[in-house]
């Protein structure tokens, strides 16, 4: 009989966190197996450049992204007692890095110190200074365009690719924000503006969110996994839905049981270390579904914290059609979605009656479709001409605001309801808190204030109440200083199960207004270093 191999490390999930940590560990000499619930969609099969009229429903039913959401992943979830939030679960090799806007911002020093700065939440168990070298390394590894703008709220690295040139609407916006004393900077994105690391530069089609068909946008499946493969230490197992992390008599992880998505057969692999990178909701689901006599409430969950503190970003933006660009000859504005960013600025004027802030991403909505046509009144020739005339002046601002990490907001699992693979589904419970609502209102005020400094027609898009999570959900298996209110130490290592690591967004203690992915990757690098060191010492 063939001996079942024992891998040094099993990484579950192939997205931003999984890709980085697998590559690092493989390069460090570990034998790594990666389990990915989805399967690869090769770049040549991406539908990014398809015209709407080449798609069955003109792309209005998400046909371009549909190949990335395999096996009914979008429907095997339930929202219960919930405000207007949704979580973005994907199932494809590369995870959510397959299609994203790739805004990569470092957390500022204050973003790790919620309790010390504002008296809410908790401080992280690590500081900006401790993470800074990893930010530097990851930025160089993935290739980031942008520049150092000298702003403390968005700490900069030393190595950037040339920033994206600003569009006309962004110059006009800058004029307005400058008159208000609000900084506006070139966005930092994991989009190549030159050939870098054997990957080609951006071709400015504006389809980042449908997937980059040349790999100029950072995609874990393109930029990380081939490097892991080159070491000869990497094994990829696709179509593998992790059901449960298995434990030995001492309660340490010994392997993973998974269901093959195609055969629906259950299999097991053995590993000395397990790294969970399935994204916030799925990672919590996996731990909660891993019950054993040693861990009756779920793996590493004796304090009941796994699944709690779910949060993400609140949103709401605005469309403006600038007078100055009205009626100019149509020109190609696609670019690489966002080119500029308005970092948090509400802290510059002293204390507020709420904690946290927001940033504005700019122009990440498509230029192909005239969004205002759905909101302008009237019809007929005059209406049609008005739509046409306004279209070149399109400017959009999308806010991403901090949401407070609160224990009552959580992911649980429903033991009586399973997905089509027989794995109990996650249930999301989420309500915005007082701080969130106060921040959201002030953010809307700020947005209208910027618009009052712009000439044009304004269409607010922030609704009656906050909504989320903008695909930025975090916090369900948090790291922390206090063992009663956290699961992981600062190296993403579970306190109760020393050979279990969680390096995706679920490890966040709290969230700032900044996009989480760069921090997820920096934490994954740091965890990889730690695992290598511990393995060398024989502790793992």
């Amino acid at each position, binding site marked *: 009989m063939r001996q079942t191999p024992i891998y040094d490390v099993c990484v579950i999930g192939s997205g931003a966190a999984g890709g980085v940590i697998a590559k690092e560990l493989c390069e460090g000499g570990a034998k790594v197996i990666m389990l990915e619930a989805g*399967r690869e969609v090769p770049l040549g099969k991406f539908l990014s450049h398809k015209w709407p*009229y080449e*798609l069955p429903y003109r792309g209005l039913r998400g046909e371009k992204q549909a190949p990335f959401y395999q096996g009914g992943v979008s429907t095997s979830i339930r929202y219960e007692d919930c405000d207007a939030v949704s979580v973005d679960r994907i199932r494809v090799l590369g995870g959510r890095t397959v299609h994203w806007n790739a805004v990569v911002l470092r957390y500022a020093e204050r973003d790790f110190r919620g309790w010390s700065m504002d008296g809410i939440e908790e401080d992280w168990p690590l500081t900006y200074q401790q993470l800074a070298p990893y930010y530097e390394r990851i930025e160089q590894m993935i290739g980031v365009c942008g520049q150092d703008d000298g702003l403390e709220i968005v700490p900069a690295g030393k190595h950037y690719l040339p920033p994206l040139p600003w569009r006309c609407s962004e110059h006009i916006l800058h004029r307005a924000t400058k008159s208000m004393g609000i900084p506006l900077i070139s966005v930092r994105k994991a989009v190549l503006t030159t050939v870098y690391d054997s990957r080609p530069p951006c071709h400015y089609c504006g389809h980042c969110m449908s997937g980059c068909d040349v790999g100029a946008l950072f995609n874990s499946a393109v930029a990380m996994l081939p490097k892991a493969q080159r070491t000869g230490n990497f094994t990829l197992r696709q179509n593998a839905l992790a059901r449960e992390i298995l434990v030995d008599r001492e309660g340490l992880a010994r392997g993973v049981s998974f269901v093959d998505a195609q055969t629906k057969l259950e299999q097991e692999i053995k590993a000395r270390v397990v790294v969970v990178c399935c994204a916030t909701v799925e990672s919590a689901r996996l731990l909660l579904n891993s019950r054993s006599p040693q861990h009756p409430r779920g793996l590493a969950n004796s304090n009941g914290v796994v699944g709690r503190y779910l949060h993400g970003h609140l949103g709401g933006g605005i469309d403006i059609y600038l007078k100055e660009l009205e009626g100019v000859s149509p020109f190609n504005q696609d670019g690489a979605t966002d080119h500029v960013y308005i970092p948090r600025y509400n802290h510059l004027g002293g204390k507020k009656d709420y904690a946290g802030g927001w940033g504005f991403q700019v122009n990440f909505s498509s230029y192909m479709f005239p969004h205002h046509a759905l909101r302008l009144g009237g019809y007929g020739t005059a209406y049609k001409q008005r739509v046409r005339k306004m279209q070149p002046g399109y400017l959009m601002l999308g806010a991403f605001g901090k949401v407070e990490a609160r224990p009552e907001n959580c992911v649980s699992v429903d033991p009586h309801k399973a997905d089509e693979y027989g794995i109990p589904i996650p249930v999301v419970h989420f309500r915005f808190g007082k701080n969130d609502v106060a921040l959201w209102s002030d953010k*809307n005020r700020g947005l209208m204030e910027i618009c009052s400094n712009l000439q044009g027609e304004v269409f607010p898009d922030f609704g009656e109440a906050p909504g989320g999570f903008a695909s930025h959900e975090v916090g369900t298996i948090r790291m922390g200083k206090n063992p009663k209110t956290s699961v992981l130490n600062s190296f993403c290592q579970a306190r109760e199960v020393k050979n279990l690591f969680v390096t995706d967004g679920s490890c966040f203690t709290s969230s700032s207004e900044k996009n989480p992915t760069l921090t997820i990757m920096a934490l994954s690098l740091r965890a990889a270093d730690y695992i290598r060191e511990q393995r060398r010492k024989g502790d793992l």
Partner: protein
Amino acid sequence: MKRRTVIKIVALGTLASKLDVVGGSVCHSSADMAWSVSNYKLRFFTPEENKLLDQLMEMIIPADNQSPGAHAAQVSLFADLMVSTSGATIQGQWREGLKRIQEQAAKSTLAEALAESAANEGHATADIERFFRDLKHMTVNGYYTSAIGIHKDLQYQGNAYLTAFPGCTHTQILSNQAGEQGEKTGQARQPKESGNLSGQANRTNGRRGLRT
């Protein structure tokens, strides 16, 4: 730069074929996704309903000296596809709406019937007013995702493979520009407290693109 050239730079093929894949095959359900109106057969609306719908849609987005309108773009067939794949409630609303417009038109003209349904567009409450809103949205969605809407009317220049992005080339705008890209933005002062939340705020947050 041609797409092929771009891809050649990295020679990225199918990753899975290069990786050491254990178990699980790679399969792609890449059925032909192209949708053509050339031999489209009505699935939901009757030919009479389709004719009425076509007329109404052309009134909403008519041909003008720049481009053909909703009729030439065959937006009513797009509507048929969308409605035929919707639930029974939505299907009933479309059938009923067209019937109501038809009845009104019999008393006056189709143009007047449409104008009446559109009279309260911003605050649609009556069924017929809600029908107008749905009809207009369907027309907009269908027309501006058609080849005529995208290329002839809006003359959209994008969805291209560029070797460089020029940024703003309108010199008037650049000369109005107080600062320049690349300057250090430095510390900012607190903006004035002003502005309010009046105006339309009736859309939800989780809309297109709220994801980065």
